[in-house]
């Protein structure tokens, strides 16, 4: 269907990008698995040669993807885990490769935990070209940290945050609310503590008690008071008030930053910019065109269904398999082909996580593919429910929309069916 205006035309260009805007590298290694964690990571012995082998394999996959032209438009890189800092020197080598292969990249983030973020590693990462560190702090109270199964102390966290800021990185601190033993006061103190360390970015998450984690086992079906939705809401609002008055601006449901310190990489996820994920459990989002480019080096991948506009892939190889995979052609993926209709509904859903909300180009495009009345009725319903507001040319989530995000996101995704 013909584009109706320049906004929509600009949006459409994004949906057909042949290369990705962001690169994610996953390092599934931790000193110990935290009590709440159900993510793809495993406790590993320090200096386990597997880490070195794994990183070497990733470096090969990286250069292959680059050679295939998939990364020519890449602007940001994010090394996540697991605990990338736990990997040590090989992490720095990986960052170095990224830098030399992708000179145009302007933001390189690494996740780190306070216990493995040594001065030596800070120096290596800085030399390698890492610009941003995202430090898993979670709390600045030792008793709370123990409940979560964290292996660092509050002191250590504050000390390492300070050192990272001092070294010149853009530093973000992750904090978790509605956790065991936490009070409104301790939550406030944790927030104030990380701000006091000079970080420019804070992410706040309510604890999610997942099945098949030690916390899940402990609190299975008991709906503990500390994690009550009411408590989660209050703490998220408390964080909003405190961070805002300290000069931070919320730009995503869980992310706050000082001026110019937004994480650009994460924003790619919410704004339909394609990204490539490498490593065990890593997720990619590619346009049909990008998927075509990947298939040239991954002949094991099936042809997309007719009508596919977007492909989501998750690498399902385990750590040992990945470390042994000499090329991208050896990898295995879970695949999801999304139609134009599904992609549009998904983009509306993801855009509603952002403070700046959904841009006019997307809404116009959604009207074209999902039907004008369906989109308008859904948006009107969300406005009537107080979940969304129409601000200038954009549709943005309200405070209520943040807290009841699942209702809002669910409603947007329903447009696909």
């Amino acid at each position, binding site marked *: 269907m013909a584009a109706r205006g320049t906004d929509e035309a600009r949006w459409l260009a994004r949906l057909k990008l042949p290369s990705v805007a962001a690169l994610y590298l996953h390092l599934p290694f931790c000193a110990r698995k935290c009590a709440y964690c159900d993510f793809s990571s495993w406790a590993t012995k320090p200096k386990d040669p597997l880490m070195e082998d794994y990183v070497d394999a990733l470096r090969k996959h990286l250069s292959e993807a680059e050679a295939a032209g998939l990364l020519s438009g890449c602007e940001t890189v994010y090394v996540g885990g697991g605990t990338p800092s736990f990997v040590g020197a090989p992490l720095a080598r990986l960052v170095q490769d990224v830098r030399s292969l992708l000179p145009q990249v302007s933001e390189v983030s690494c996740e780190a935990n306070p216990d493995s973020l040594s001065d030596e590693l800070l120096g290596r990462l800085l030399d390698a070209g890492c610009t941003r560190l995202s430090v898993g702090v979670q709390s600045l109270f030792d008793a709370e940290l123990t409940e979560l199964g964290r292996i660092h102390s509050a002191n250590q966290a504050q000390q390492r945050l300070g050192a990272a800021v001092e070294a010149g990185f853009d530093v973000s601190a992750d904090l978790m609310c509605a956790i065991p033993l936490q009070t409104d006061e301790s939550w406030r103190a944790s927030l104030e503590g990380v701000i006091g360390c000079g970080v420019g970015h804070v992410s706040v998450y309510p604890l999610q008690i997942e099945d098949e984690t030690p916390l899940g086992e402990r609190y299975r079906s008991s709906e503990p008071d500390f994690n009550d939705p009411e408590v*989660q809401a209050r703490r998220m609002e408390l964080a909003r008030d405190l961070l805002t008055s300290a000069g931070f601006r919320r730009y995503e449901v869980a992310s706050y930053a000082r001026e110019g310190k937004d994480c650009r990489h994460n924003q790619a996820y919410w704004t339909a910019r394609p990204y490539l994920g490498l490593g065990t459990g890593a997720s990619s989002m590619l346009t049909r065109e990008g998927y075509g480019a990947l298939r040239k080096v991954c002949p094991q991948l099936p042809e997309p269904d007719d009508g596919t506009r977007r492909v989501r892939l998750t690498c399902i190889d385990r750590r040992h398999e990945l470390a042994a995979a000499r090329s991208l052609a050896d990898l295995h993926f879970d695949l999801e082909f999304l139609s134009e209709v599904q992609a549009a509904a998904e983009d509306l859903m993801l855009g509603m996580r952002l403070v700046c909300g959904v841009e006019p180009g997307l809404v116009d495009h959604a009207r074209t593919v999902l039907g004008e009345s369906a989109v308008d009725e859904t948006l009107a319903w969300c406005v009537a429910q107080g979940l969304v507001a129409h601000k200038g040319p954009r549709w943005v989530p309200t405070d209520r929309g943040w807290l009841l995000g699942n209702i809002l996101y669910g409603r947007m*995704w329903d447009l696909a069916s």
Partner: protein
Amino acid sequence: MKKDTSHIRNFSIVAHIDHGKSTISDRILELTHTVEERDLESQMLDSMDIERERGITIKSNAVRVAYDSDDGNTYQFNLIDTPGHVDFTYEVSRSLAACEGAVLVVDATQGVEAQTVSNALLAMNANLDIVPAINKIDLSSAEPERVREEIEEDLAIPADDAVCVSGKTGEGIHDLLESIVYLVSAPTGDADAPLKALILDSYFDEYRGVVATVRVFDGAIAKGTRLQMMATGDVFLCDGVGCKRPLETPLPELGVGEVGYVVTGLKDPALVHVGDTLTTPDNPCDEALPGYHEAKPMVFAGVFPVDNKEYENLRDALEKLKVNDPSLTWAPETSVALGFGFRVGFLGLLHMEVVKERLEREFALDLIATSPSVDYHVYTTAGEMLDIKSPQDLPRPEQIDRIEEPYLNAKVIVPPEYMGAVMQLAIEHRGITKDMVYLSEKSVEMHFDIPLAELILDFFDQLKSRTKGYASLDYEFADYRVSDLVKLDILLAGEEVDALSFIVHKDKAYTLARGLCDKLKEIIPRQQFEVPIQGAIGNKIISRSTVRAVRKDVLAKCYGGDISRKRKLLEKQKEGKKRMKQIGTVDVPQEAFLAVLKVDDE
């Protein structure tokens, strides 16, 4: 020519719950090589999943076994399993009418209990030969001698011949089978007389239509015989006969005194009634077997598909279920809240639960059942009498002159120490105690009149729990009596929800309204907005509770751009919501419509 029936024994096994009826049945099947041990699915006779899960028998079942007796003869045993719940008293009576004998199982560690007494009375009233069996003698706490005395004293049944058995080890089962040969009479009947057979149950087979379980009293049935059902007058051609061993085994004929199945070929189960008499239209018998009456539903509830598009499927499912369960009746019902459905008549509350569960499982339907009601007689100021089976059909108060509700004569048999508890329970349920009779030192029979509406809620469960399971309950319809009844309405977010209305005695309305509002608050999940729940009589609000608004519902974390996983979570959430009924702006779970059954007694 008189056909020899001396080798036939028709009997059922009766017992108090958990005294071991099913294990003994299993052992008999095993010992007679009807079922090999390795094929023996626990409690073979209870064939429905629901029966096995709940440990109750809902359908009657008849299994034929061949027993080589010590006297050198081979006997045909027809073991007739009977339902075990007060809802199915009529079915039990028809099954017993097909027998000459009953094995009365008594637990050697527990002795005679309430249901032992009531089952023994049923069997004696049906003139059956009783074979007492003392079970579980393998247990160290077994006291067979004491139990033998109890059987003689409490039940006045000679227990010299009582057989000591263990369903678990198989000990004594052989002696039990010998006792059946000697103590249970062979059937009598005339093979040359016109056909007279009792229908004790029926089930539906997709290919063969209605299959009836019958007992032949006179004459015989073979494939190709033209048959007639005497109560309904319907005629059909017999498509085959046989018996179950326990799988269906075709036979050339069902002869006099035998029990087996008859393939009717009829596609409409409503034509085949439990208790009806089968004969041949060309040479009919003089009179039908006694005891027949149409099973009458006592309890009525709305049954609605969650998704209104399933309405026709629900109708088909009800029709199919009726083949196996001819007591089911229904009429279309419309609800503002729930759309199109049916008002279904049930024999009792257990029957209602079982039917709903079967409809959902066997026909993959998502259903909402509303609070059970009885059939009220409402006299209007205009002088009309209306049959009201659903609260929403009740006329406005100013149009009502008086309402009459059905009363029952209820009979409870209970050990004397629980008399007080039962009287208290009866008072709480508007019952009027009439008299009580000591049947023995250990059991009292209490009679009272009680409104059916009170009995169908939680009376039976309460009776069981307050008497530690010792009480047995039996009831029959008495008459209609004037009562001071009101309609209690429930409002969700200010809107009256017709499917939640309930007819209740005025004196109980306030307590019930409070209880219902509290229970609904527990059941209805938090919504986007605060939801007030109100109980009202007419325009007067008499109780209130509030479902607080949900404050936070978001999965903020989103590691590494794994959006697929996030969407799957949203979709899962949506699935859960789909099972709820949206009423106005409120999502209401299915169980909310039965909240009245779950209101705790304060």
